[in-house]
């Protein structure tokens, strides 16, 4: 399995290799954070917004902590939360969307109206209400973001599945008497994978942004835990004075997003290739 992957990777285009490389670097940073980081996660080492120096490679943040250290620890917290949240939201969203498309009728109506209701309430307001009542521990945060985000996934997967379920081969499978789960996983999923995977690459980085917007309302990840979204928020005021500190966590998010999407593109290319052959 692993050697297969290596072989594939060797033959992959440069962009895909770069994407995999980026992800691996980030994962290493996340897993071995305490070993790599020069300081402790919340240790204050100097003045506010110090320049880059040999003491702190990327300078310091808004209360004098080492930015590089925060970035490394941020990788750990942010990536794990973003992955779990996105996978959860895709699981909920795709299951719901496919079921609606395949079964149709009242199930479809019921779920679609429910999602309409969820989606037509502004997402920040919704999050504000739920988190105010439930509190802002990390599991709650993951659950709330996943559920709110899954409505978007639901709509997309329902839409793409709708196009597929009217195809003859699905009709045929239905006539064969296949059950819903079979239809969803064997007939619909393979034929809708491309747009869904593309969406995954994007949704993944929306989680960072959502956490960042929540910290705008004071509902994000608990300090002093480092996460990139909140780091951008906390340092953002500096940009108008030409201090580039907030660009660093923003760049960290951007590079990871690009890396993930390069791999996603590679995957899309390969699935297209499979269909081709």
């Amino acid at each position, binding site marked *: 399995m692993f050697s297969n992957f290596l072989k594939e990777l060797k033959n992959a285009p440069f962009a895909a290799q770069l994407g995999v490389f980026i992800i691996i670097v980030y994962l290493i940073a996340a897993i071995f954070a305490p070993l790599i980081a020069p300081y402790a996660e919340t240790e*204050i080492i100097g003045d*506010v917004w110090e320049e880059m120096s040999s003491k702190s490679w990327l300078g310091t943040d808004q209360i004098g902590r080492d930015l590089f250290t925060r970035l490394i620890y941020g990788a750990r917290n942010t990536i794990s939360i973003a992955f779990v949240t996105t996978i959860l939201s895709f699981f909920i969203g795709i299951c719901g969307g496919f079921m609606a498309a395949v079964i149709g009728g009242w199930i479809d109506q019921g779920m679609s109206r429910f999602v309409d209701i969820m989606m037509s309430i502004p997402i920040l307001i919704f999050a504000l209400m739920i988190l*105010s009542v439930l509190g802002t521990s990390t599991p709650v945060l993951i659950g709330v973001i996943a559920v709110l985000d899954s409505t978007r996934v639901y709509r997309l997967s329902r839409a793409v599945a709708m196009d597929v379920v009217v195809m003859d081969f699905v009709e045929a499978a239905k006539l064969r008497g296949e059950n819903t789960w079979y239809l969803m996983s064997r007939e619909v999923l393979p034929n809708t994978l491309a747009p869904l995977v593309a969406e995954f690459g994007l949704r993944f980085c929306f989680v960072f942004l959502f956490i960042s917007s929540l910290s705008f309302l004071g509902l994000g990840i608990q*300090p002093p835990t480092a996460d990139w979204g909140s780091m951008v928020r906390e340092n953002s005021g500096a940009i*108008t004075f030409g201090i580039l500190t907030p660009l660093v966590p923003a760049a960290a998010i951007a590079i990871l997003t690009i890396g993930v999407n390069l791999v996603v593109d590679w995957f899309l290319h390969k699935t297209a290739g499979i269909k081709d052959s």
Partner: protein
Amino acid sequence: MSTKNELEYLLKSGKVSRRDFIGRAAALGVSATMASTLFAGSASAAPKKGGRLRLGIAGGSTTESIDTATLPGFMAQQLSFGQLRNCLVEIDANGKPVPELAESWSSSADAKSWTFKLRKGVEFHNGKTMTAEDVIHSINHHRGKDSKSAAKSLVAAIDELKADDKYTVTFNLKEGSADFPFVASDYHLGIVPVGTTGKDMEKGMGTGGYILESHEPGVRAFTKRNPNYWKEGRAHFDEIETIGIEDSTARTNALKTGQIDFMNRAESKTFHLLGRLAGIEAIKTTGTKHYTIPMHSDQAPYNNVDARLALKYAIDREAVVKTILRGHGLVGNDHPIAPSNQYFNTDLPVREYDPEKAKFHMKKAGLSDHKFRLHTSDAAFGGAVDTAVLYKEHAAKAGINIEVVQEPKDGYWDNVWMKKEWTFSFWSGRPTEDWMFTIGYAEGGAWNESFFSHERFNMLMKAGRAELDDTKRRAIYYEMQEICSNEGGSVIPMYASDLAGASSKLGHDKIAANWEGDGMKIAERWWFK
């Protein structure tokens, strides 16, 4: 500019002698020569009339109201108090009460009965002449069973209010209060025409220097100069646009690009950068504003004086002032009386950061392994979350374990403050010692946020209120500050300066520190050069 204001304030209000003043100036890094020039006072050019002033204000909300009973944020306050209405008494730039709508006042010997003589011939914006009935209506708006006023506790001391004649009003108080004229200057107690209630309040009728044209809550307000304004040499602008800008970066940018002429609440982190910009004056005033970290001192583990003391020793105040306020403030001493207050205790040494003492007291309290949950939110003050994180780091060096809990900004004052056992809070402070102690530290007080209950402290408070002898009052308030500092239930790490930015096209005299925005009176006191 900044240090100058601070020093001048202390000096002119007679709180420091000339020698003291030079000494303090030196401590603040002002050279002796410069200090002497300051001492001579700064001359200011004669104000010019005209122009359109644009204020970029934080502290507005789209649900705000300019009913004098509510005035929930700075935007509504500075509109009502700073532009549209007047009070009986005004606090001048030196922190002294001076006549406004009242021409003069006097009290009985026990300070229980206060008589205000009203100014004659003052007209409201609609042409009605201001008389005693308007004053009585305006004050009674906050009193009575059905009052929903935020100032209800303020006027609770009034037992009876009556008009002696058309231009004389007498307040009979429940007990003596030497500081009553200060109370009459509160921004809630603006005078409106008799009969104004409910929706009519939103029309902004008053006797002030500007007339309300339109007010979109939280967004903007337009006012025009009142051509009949009774106060001479005040209200110089032709018109004023007040724009609500909540985001501090947006405010700073608007000032930089010349879209506004004044901004309040500049960020301390970037204040020094603001001062370097051409055409912008960075303004710092230090008044009575302070940040507190109150605990439920009536409940375990905070009912243990040693535990409280340990927590007080476990915070590095210098570092907090340097990091959170970027030096724009002063270290606090665990009591709410500020250096600009009249009876500030100068004998009391400032508590140093001392992990050893903290460890010692915590051990004595038997709580060395306790995990203290500190509830914080930037709703308390900008930087409260960062302060909590710093505090946690400082306390860790003394072996004290603090867990920082970030609460939502929304509903912080309803659900967290005074509800959770250890929280963050802020006070704009009060001009008098009695007022400050009474609302924030008296047993059973509605805002006794640390649930402080100390027999001698409460006894002294009562004694100080009716005491007219200056020396005795000083002794009383000195002792109260000491009790509060050593035994009180609040960690008070810092006094914060008000930071603002203004276009250098604006002229002004000495800037008052009692409220932000020149005592909220920019519209009245400033002008275009």
